[in-house]
């Protein structure tokens, strides 16, 4: 047999790695991204002649905790019908045993990539506000994301903002959790016998107290401590605050050691220490969202979104009490055109009065 060239070795490696879509209506086009749990492929839906993104689990074991988690992720996203959350089209098991789900293909850039090419703080705040709204919608439906970071927010070609990667999301309401996990198990394990207490362990992997899931720097202190049972919407609020920190300073919030995240956030430089052009109000919003104590944070993503909207409209924010001077200068800044007109009018009047006296 002829010797295999390097190019053929790589091709054979990809054959061995690539999922087998032969039993589905999808044809693989190329790999888009690879993560710890799954790989996302660009694929062609041959029935509808459209391109979709397909996330495929890296392991072929349909009974594994990862497979259950991925099916749960698909179910969670599917029920969150919101313009800021990527819709899921399909979910199933490939012939090679890997769980997959197909979703809308989003063409665009991640928020961190978008920020790298866009210095406008206003634009960044608008994008974050849209992400807050999508997260607030999920919260209203009893779902917390638990891994919010700039890399999981996509800016589409038309400026639309989408929150991605709900792989470690948690369902807060028990009745809904039971409903979703039971469906997920049924869906992906055809022919498998159900264990007597299966519906109760479907969430076990990610709800065990002490488990740390998330991204250092962006996860809340309670999440970094593995206090899974204590996590609620305010944990996502912290992450949104950390994203705001990044958008204001271009620096990732510091957290080198998961267990020491509390200590790290204490020593983390304030946004204005990094960029003095940041307003005190914007800094206050960021620090309130990132407060170490959950009770000091915004109670919800919707509250944070409202304060970001206030920042954009130069309105007072709940996180910062202005003094009279700041109030006046904010008002002047907001009504610059009006102030200019009044000043111009006054100057003209003075000019006419002076010329009339001569």
């Amino acid at each position, binding site marked *: *047999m002829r*010797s*295999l*060239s*390097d*190019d*053929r*070795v790589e*091709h*054979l*490696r990809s*054959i*061995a*790695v690539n999922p*087998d879509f*032969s*039993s589905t209506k999808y044809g693989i086009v190329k790999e888009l991204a*690879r993560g710890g749990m799954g*790989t996302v492929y660009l694929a062609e839906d041959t029935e509808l002649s459209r391109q979709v993104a397909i996330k495929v689990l*890296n*392991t*072929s*074991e*349909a009974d*594994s905790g*990862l497979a259950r988690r991925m099916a749960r992720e698909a179910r969670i996203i599917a029920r969150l019908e919101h313009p800021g959350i990527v819709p899921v089209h399909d979910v199933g*098991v*490939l*012939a*090679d*045993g890997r769980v997959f789900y197909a979703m809308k293909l989003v063409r665009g850039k991640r928020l961190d990539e978008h920020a790298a090419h866009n210095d406008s703080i206003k634009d960044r705040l608008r994008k974050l506000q849209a992400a807050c709204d999508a997260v607030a919608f999920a919260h209203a439906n009893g779902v917390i994301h638990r891994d919010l970071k700039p890399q999981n927010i996509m800016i589409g070609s038309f400026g639309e903002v989408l929150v991605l990667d709900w792989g470690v999301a948690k369902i807060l309401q028990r009745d809904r959790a039971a409903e979703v996990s039971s469906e997920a198990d049924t869906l992906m394990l055809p*022919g*498998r016998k159900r264990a007597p207490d299966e519906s109760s362990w479907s969430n076990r992997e990610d709800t065990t107290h002490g488990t740390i899931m998330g991204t250092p720097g962006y996860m809340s202190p309670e999440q970094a401590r593995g206090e899974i049972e204590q996590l609620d919407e305010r944990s996502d609020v912290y992450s949104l605050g950390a994203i705001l920190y990044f958008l204001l300073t271009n620096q990732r919030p510091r957290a080198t050691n998961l267990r020491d995240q509390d200590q790290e956030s204490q020593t983390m430089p304030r946004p204005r220490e990094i960029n003095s052009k940041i307003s005190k109000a914007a800094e206050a919003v960021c620090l309130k969202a990132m407060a170490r104590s959950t009770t000091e944070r915004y109670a919800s993503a919707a509250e944070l979104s409202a304060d970001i909207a206030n920042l954009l409209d130069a309105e007072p924010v709940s996180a910062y009490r202005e003094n009279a001077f700041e109030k006046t200068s904010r008002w002047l800044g907001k009504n610059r055109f009006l102030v200019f007109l009044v000043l111009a009018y006054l100057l003209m009047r003075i000019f006419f009065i002076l010329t009339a006296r001569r």
Partner: protein
Amino acid sequence: MDQDTDIGGPHHRFPVTSHSAIVAARSADPQVRERALETILASYWKPAYKYMRIKWQASNEDAKDLTQGFFASAIEKNYFARYDSAKASFQTFLRTCLDRFVANQRQAEQRLKRGGGAAHFSLDFSGAENELQQHAVASEISPEDYFHREWVRSLFTLAIETLSRRYDDSGRSVYFKLFELYDLADNDSEPKVSYASLANEFGLNTTDVTNYLAAARREFRKIVLEKVRELTTTEEEFRAEVRMLLGVEVK
């Protein structure tokens, strides 16, 4: 479901049933041990030969003798029985043994005395030498990475040979021919083959070509996993090797 396209079985999992040749190499039964050593030899002799040519700058003839000598010595002294998967991967262990062997040989200047020129095994050294000339060795690649790269090449080559044999034995050699023409032909070969041209050449329809190729690729993947299983001793080591080889988790 068509049996050809159902290699994963009713539960759609990869059945990896091969036994570990490394474990078998410790067997008290000489026949079992011999078969196991043949398996290890088949996978590792080429990377070992090329490694000695590159890392130790051994001449063609020296590398041949060293390769023969190393595996003969490994069998005689039962090197592989000493392997402990908790300490390192088998590849690392084998490389360390190779380095030690070559260093000892050079130090004692006993290469010829220890069996230099004696052919213990029938190995295609000229083929290995041709491969060495064909595939450029980048200066920045470490000897360890080079050894791994050549091991992957050797493993895939063995998997292809097994695939060819299996399809021949089952009377479905057309599957392998399609695989060979579509997946093994170098990209620079002209004209590029397409599913349609293959369908035309073999008197099939395009859907058949798609299905046969998918089946051959699945079988190839299965064989690769079987080979890795043969060359590892524990489940953990197997998964680590597959992760390194393919970058994916396989259970």
